[in-house]
């Protein structure tokens, strides 16, 4: 039988771990419940009702969210109230009714107004510099930071070895 002073911390640790797991599971359950409620609520979203004059389709809104107002700064098409944006929304409605694929509709607006109407920056040409900047920043901090940590540790080891000698 192990001595009493060796068992007590083990029991405490086990009790602590159990409590912590139970707490964590409760928290996870709460988050899960909240998100699943959110997800369930989404099932009924946007369903057209017979007695509304018009309810825009999810597809229409999804295309609008990919586009920006050509005149404002950083304003999504679905939220802008300028007449030019109202016209763009009407064109999207008409094109969807004709069966034009969403990609072609987005391409049409890009050709007409330029890259500035795209909410999602195209990963091509000059824009690749920005994505390179992101990768470079993460690499600098990841690889460079890792190297700095390793160097700090190595110089500490050398100092400790020097003191030992």
């Amino acid at each position, binding site marked *: 039988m192990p001595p009493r002073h060796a068992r007590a911390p083990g029991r405490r640790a086990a009790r602590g*771990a159990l409590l912590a797991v139970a*707490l964590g599971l409760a928290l*996870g359950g709460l*988050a899960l419940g909240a998100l699943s409620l959110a997800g369930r609520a989404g099932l*009924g*979203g946007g369903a057209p009702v017979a007695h509304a004059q018009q309810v825009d389709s999810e597809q229409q809104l999804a295309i609008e969210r990919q586009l920006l107002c050509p005149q404002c700064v*950083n304003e999504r098409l679905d939220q802008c109230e300028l007449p030019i944006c109202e016209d763009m929304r009407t064109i999207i409605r008409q094109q969807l009714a004709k069966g034009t694929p969403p990609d072609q509709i987005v391409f049409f607006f890009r050709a007409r107004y330029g890259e500035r109407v795209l909410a999602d920056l195209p990963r091509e040409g000059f824009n690749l510099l920005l994505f390179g900047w992101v990768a470079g920043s993460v690499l600098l901090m990841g690889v460079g930071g890792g190297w700095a940590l390793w160097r700090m540790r190595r110089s500490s080891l050398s100092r*400790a070895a020097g003191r030992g000698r």
Partner: protein
Amino acid sequence: MNLAGALGASALLTALASAIFAVVASTWGVRRAHPGALAAGRRAIYATAALLTAAIATLAVALLRDDFGLAYVASVSSREMQTAFKWAALYSGQPGSLLLWTWLMSLAVAGVVWHAGARLRWARGHAQAVGSGALAAFLVPLVFLASPFEVSALTPADGVGLNPLLVDRAMLIHPPMLLAGLASTVAPFIIAAAALLAGRVDASWVRAARPWALASFVVLSAGNVLGGWWAYTVLGWGGYWAWDPVENSAILPLLPMIALLHGFAVQERRGMLKLWNLAMAFAAFSLAVFGTFNVRSGLVSSVHSFAQSDIGPYFLGLLGAALLGSVALLAWRSSRLSSDHDFESLLSRETGLIVNNYLLTAIALVILGGTLFPVASELVRDVRITVSAPFYDQAVGPLLAALLLVAAIGMLLPWRRGAPRTLARRFAWPAALLVLSAVGLAAAGVRDPFALAGVVFAVTLIAVTLREYWHGARGAHRAAGGGAFAWPGAVGALFRRDPGRYGGYLVHLGLAVMAIAVIGSTVYQQQVRATVAPGESFEAGRYTLTYVSLDGRAGTANGVETEAVATVTVREGDRLLGELQPGRRFFTNFPGQPMGIVALRSSWREDLYLFVQGWDEDLVAEFQVFVNPLMIWLWAGAGVYVAGGLLAFGWQRPAPARERVTPPAPGAAQRA
């Protein structure tokens, strides 16, 4: 002669002269070890703050008295505006907001000089010189380029009034809070620069700078949250953070400030990160200056407006000077910036905090790149592009999720080194929880990898934080004799014993709750747009909305001419939940700039967010509806976050053992 104009302009000009005198006297006092010159420099800084207080009071009185002889007052205020909104008019234009910025900065500089008297005696003169230099640099554009006391050639009968975007109660608190946060970044900057100039970079500057860095962190965080709340409740686009260049400018200085607070803990405990912490203090202030330049130059919205701006090039020069000066100071003192103690193990809390700093820096670099890239595109190839939310969601989202995980891991790691067996025991249950949560969420249908990772890491951080409180409070609970009623006292004792640590954990807790809410409200947001005539209905999520009527009502005040308000009833199944009244507000002096009135129904589960986009002559109206899950938790988490920051102020840690004091550089230290 306009009295307010003469008084205000004189106060600003005298403040500039006083700040320049403070620079000269303080530098002279340090070089010649002359106590009289140092005292004169100190008094000149207090005088500068007093003169700026007089200037801002003069402008406030001019606004309250409708003194339209001042061009600034005529451009932002009008006779019928309510008193509270005349206060908002004080900082609604460029000259006024620059005056508020500089006034708040003068209070911070005076506060540092006064506070540093006890804690930073060896570098007080240097702090005076740097602080008054910063003040003089901000006073130059106020006096010569953008004075709020410019007198109109003709005095108009009435003013134009406040910009419709600003006619909201949130404007009374959000901009001053944000400007105070930005201006307060000067305090750690001054102390760091003074420590370097004096050649003493041990933990003493950390102890002097920590309360200021913490104050700046709390105020900047609160300012950003209030900005999000204003955007959500006023702007009417269903969200709270658009990654707009101006928003980016406000959040950028916060990131190095958070890194600095974590770095302080490492430097104070282990004598490490000396160079890094100084660099973070410089980065926070430089990014605040960058924000000022970015917002005031018009650089980001259009590269051409930069050329037309008087104030933009000046702040660009100031930013360059701050950066060059910082790098030169760090290079000059680099030989004194080595660690005091050995870095004993990679499996230590030091590593967690250092990785946290690297992540925050990577996030800042990504946001800075995204903010400036449209300028580069326009300059290099003359093509206008927009870097908007999808880019930031993809580039910054994963880094923020990783930050939550690193925060949880860091809290589990011990200082210096951890025995492998102890670490295995500490990490076993959080790892199990992480896997279980991931499996549970995936089984429940959460498929988005960003949402899954973010929620799992946030849940792990919450659990690890609560475990820290439980472990800490257990002893105090036993000492108090146990029992359920002893727990609140035991938790309170933790904050009394080590408020910095447990306040910081509360910030983590708030951050994790906010992260879950952000994921819920962005990934699971639903949007519906419906065109309906009075009496018709449509569905949004689980709600049925019926458009009842559209009524007009006369404007109240603050330039509002009329308001059109729609009445919409909200049902869930057969149950009537209530009425919402979204609408639009039209302004007399801004006919082309109507503002939406957002109608909101909040519950613990989600927000129903409704606004009117327009209507025709038959009153057929177009409604935009958003169902934003978990929104209330975003504000609740932000409250916990700010409360944690406030509670951390009481940090009274005893001086660490084995602190090595670096001797001052010969001839450079203040001998007075």
